[in-house]
């Protein structure tokens, strides 16, 4: 098993050399880091490597929680709404609420109308 892992690692390195042993491209991670703010000057070589693994964990957790939402909805297809529900239900994902909410309100005109009605009711 350990040997098989070695083979698959080497093979994948050859097939998609840009990622090497990491499942996400380090150059892309570095670019996103650079664009996260004007203040980011230099990035050590190890930081994108840490992010490569961190994003694995993040994607896995977000996927797991979203899938739970899909199952509760008796569905087998993961939708954007499942991601939004998972984000809303999880404290550490609070920073994503704006992102998934904007997507929802943009995609669904009805949501905006409902909000407007509520606003009228309050006034």
């Amino acid at each position, binding site marked *: 098993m350990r040997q098989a*892992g070695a083979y698959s690692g080497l093979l994948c390195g050859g097939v998609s050399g840009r990622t090497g042993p990491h499942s996400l491209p380090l150059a892309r991670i570095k670019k*996103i880091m650079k664009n996260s703010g004007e*203040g980011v000057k230099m990035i050590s070589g190890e930081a994108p490597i840490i992010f490569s693994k961190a994003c694995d964990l993040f994607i896995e957790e977000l996927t797991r929680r979203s899938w739970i939402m899909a199952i509760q909805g008796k569905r087998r297809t993961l*939708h954007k709404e499942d991601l939004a529900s998972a984000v809303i239900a999880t404290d550490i994902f609070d920073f994503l609420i704006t992102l998934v909410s904007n997507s929802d309100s*943009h995609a669904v005109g009805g949501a905006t109308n409902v909000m407007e009605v509520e606003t009228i009711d309050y006034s």
Partner: protein
Amino acid sequence: MAGVREQDQYMPIANVIRIMRRILPAHAKISDDAKETIQECVSEYISFITAEANERCQREQRKTVTAEDVLWAMEKLGFDNYAHPLSLYLHRYRESEGEPASVRRASSAMGINNNMVHPPYINSHGFGMFDFDPSSQGFYRDDHNAASGSGGFVAPFDPYANIKRDAL
């Protein structure tokens, strides 16, 4: 969402989906809007953590964001259950970095060779130990690769040497 999405601001969708598939059952489907949304979430996650890490750098009057800054920012922002496995990951990475440079270069070379002789490899050598389709580019979790990679740097040399001889 309107307009062209700059692809270089997101992780490649194929990589993201591959990671998602590890978690989802075989019969699960992923809608296109979910794929796009999770791409955006990943970029937002990187920016969120990086901004916090960079603030610490600036407070301490340093110019380079390090792996330690990233780990510190994760703990501060509530991702402390990530920070511990990532510390171990970083530690193992640094250990593997200590290996002779010639071994790492040889590994890279093998990667290149393997790429060139990909078709003959598939046709002439059927390693039963593989439990995946090489063309799908699937592979084990990083933990497994990292652990087995360092140990397997010597063993896999022979099979590739055979391939090279066949090509000649």
